C-alpha cells in the first residue's frame, strides 16, 4: 500500500512537471497574414575559364534571369548591387554579403569546355537565409544547345523554390498569319516559350487552323486545307513528318488530343451532320510508323 502511494505520488509529480514546463516556456502565435511578393534572387553570370565559354556563361545566366523574371514569382537583383564577386562555385559564398542586398536565393554556375568540343554547364542553388545548398546539376551538351540547358536550369530552380514543375523548357505552337486580308497565308509555326527559335512547320500552301499539342508526346494535330479539303493532320516533331488522320468523304476539323494523349477526337461532317469521332488507332499507327 505504501509502495503504491509512493508510485502514485511520483507519477503525479512527473505529470505536473511535464505539463507545466512547456506551458510557461512557450508562446504560440498563429500567422495568417503574409505577402505575395516575388522572391528576390541573385543570378550572377556563370563562371568560365576561356572567352568562348564566358560568352556562353553570360547568355545562360541571362536566359535564366529572364525566365524567372517573367514568371512573376521572382525579382532579380541587379548585378551592380552584388558585394561578393564569386570566383569559384565550389566554395560556399559569403552569405552575409548576399543577405545585405536582400537576396533570398543565389544561383552560382560555371561553363567549361570539354575536350570533345562540347561544353559542361553546371549550377548550384543556395538558400541564402539557411546557408544551405538546395540543388545542383551539371549538363554536357553541344555549345549551340546552351539555351535549352538554360531553360532546364530555370525549371530546376523554379521547381525547387515554388514546389511546382517548371515550364521554361517548353515550346509553343501557333498559326502565323501573313499577307493581305484577301490572300491571307496561315502557316504552322513553333517557338520556345520565351519566343526564341521560331521556325515554320508547314509551307505557305497549307492554310492551317486549330493546332494542338499532345499532352504526352512530341505530336501536333491541326486542320489544314493542304489537300484541298479540310483535313486533320498529325505532325511528329521528332521526325518532322506529317500525315492525314483518316480518309473520310466529308470534312474533318477541330481536332483535340485526349487528356492522356492516347487518341485524337475530331469532328466529322457527313451528310450534313457533325459528329465527334475518336481515332486512337490512327494515332498509334502514326507513332509506330515514325519510331
Amino acid at each position, binding site marked *: 500500500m505504501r509502495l503504491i502511494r509512493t508510485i502514485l505520488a511520483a507519477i503525479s509529480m512527473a505529470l505536473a512537471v511535464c505539463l507545466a514546463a512547456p506551458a510557461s516556456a*512557450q508562446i504560440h*502565435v*498563429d500567422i495568417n497574414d*503574409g505577402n505575395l511578393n516575388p522572391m528576390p534572387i541573385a543570378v550572377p553570370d556563370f563562371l568560365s575559364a576561356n572567352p568562348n565559354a564566358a560568352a556562353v556563361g553570360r547568355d545562360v545566366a541571362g536566359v535564366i534571369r529572364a525566365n524567372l523574371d517573367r514568371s512573376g514569382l521572382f525579382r532579380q537583383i541587379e548585378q551592380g548591387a552584388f558585394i561578393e564577386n564569386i570566383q569559384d562555385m565550389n566554395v560556399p559564398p559569403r552569405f552575409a554579403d548576399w543577405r545585405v542586398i536582400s537576396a533570398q536565393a543565389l544561383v552560382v554556375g560555371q561553363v567549361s569546355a570539354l575536350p570533345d568540343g562540347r561544353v559542361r554547364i553546371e549550377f548550384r542553388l543556395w538558400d541564402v*537565409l539557411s546557408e544551405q545548398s538546395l540543388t545542383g546539376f551539371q549538363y554536357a551538351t553541344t555549345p549551340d544547345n546552351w539555351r535549352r540547358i538554360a531553360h532546364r536550369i530555370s525549371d530546376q530552380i523554379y521547381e525547387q523554390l515554388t514546389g511546382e514543375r517548371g515550364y521554361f523548357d517548353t515550346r509553343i505552337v501557333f498559326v502565323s498569319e501573313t499577307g493581305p486580308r484577301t490572300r491571307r497565308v496561315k502557316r504552322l509555326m513553333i517557338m520556345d516559350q520565351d519566343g526564341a527559335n521560331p521556325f515554320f512547320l508547314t509551307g505557305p500552301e497549307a492554310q492551317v487552323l486549330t493546332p494542338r499539342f499532345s499532352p504526352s508526346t512530341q505530336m501536333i494535330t491541326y486542320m489544314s486545307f493542304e489537300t484541298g479539303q479540310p483535313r486533320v493532320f498529325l505532325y511528329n516533331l521528332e521526325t518532322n513528318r506529317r500525315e492525314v488522320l483518316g480518309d473520310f468523304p466529308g470534312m474533318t476539323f477541330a481536332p483535340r488530343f485526349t487528356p492522356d494523349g492516347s487518341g485524337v477526337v475530331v469532328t466529322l461532317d457527313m451528310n450534313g451532320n457533325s459528329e465527334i469521332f475518336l481515332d486512337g488507332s490512327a494515332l498509334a499507327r502514326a507513332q509506330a510508323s515514325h519510331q
Partner: protein
Amino acid sequence: MRAGVIISVIGHVGAVMMTFLAWETAPLVVPMQGTVVPIEILEISAESNVRALSIPEPEDLAPAAAEEETTPEAVEPPAPSPTPAPRPPRPTPQQNDELDLASIARMVDKQREPGRERTNGATSDRNQRGAGLGTAEVASMQDRIRALTQAHMRRCWRMPSDLPDPERLVVTVEWELDRNGSLRGQPRVTSPRNYNFDPPMRTAAENALRAVRQCDPYPFPNDPIVGEHYDLWRSGDFTFRVSQ
C-alpha cells in the same frame, strides 16, 4: 419617555463629538512619525512594484539632484524628541508637505541610481517581476507579443496561396530567441513531420522557415511593455496558416 429621548440625543451627540475629538487627535500623532513611516512603505513597494517596468532607465541628472536634496532636507527636520510633549516644535503644514515630497523623491531617486538593483541585479530583478506577474498581465503581454509577431511577420512570410489546396498547408515552426531578439540556433518544423515527399507541403515548410529566418532579429527587446520579460518570448512556435 421624553427624558429618554433627551438622554439618547445627548448620548448620540456626545458620541459624535468624541469621534470629532478622535479625528482631531489622530493627525497629532501621525505627523510625528510621518518622516519615517512613509519612507519604509516606499522602500517595500519600490522593490516589488511592477509598474517600475515602464519607467525609463535613470538619467544622469537624477543622482546629482538627489544628492543636492538629501543634505539640506535630511538635516532640516528636528531631531525626534522622545519627550511626549504635547506641542513639540513641529514644522508648519507646508514644511511638512515639502519634507514628505522630498523624502519620496529621494527614495525614488535612490531606486534610479545606476549600479543599484535595476542595472546590477538584472537576473534577480527579472525573477521578482516574473513572479509578480498575474495571469491577466501575462495574457495581455502574450497578446502583445502575438500582435508584434504578426505585424513583423507580414513582410517576411510569402503565403503559399498559389499552391494547390493552400488550406491544408499548415506548418508549425519552433524557435528560440536570444535576449537581443535574434534567433538562437536554427528554427525547425515540428508539424507536419514528414513533408519531404509532398512537394507543396515542402515548399510551404521552406517558406515558413525562410520567413522565420528573414524576420530575424525580432522586435521584442525594444518593446517598452514586453521588452524586459524575456521569459515570455524566449521560445515558442509559429503556426503558418493561409487565412480563408
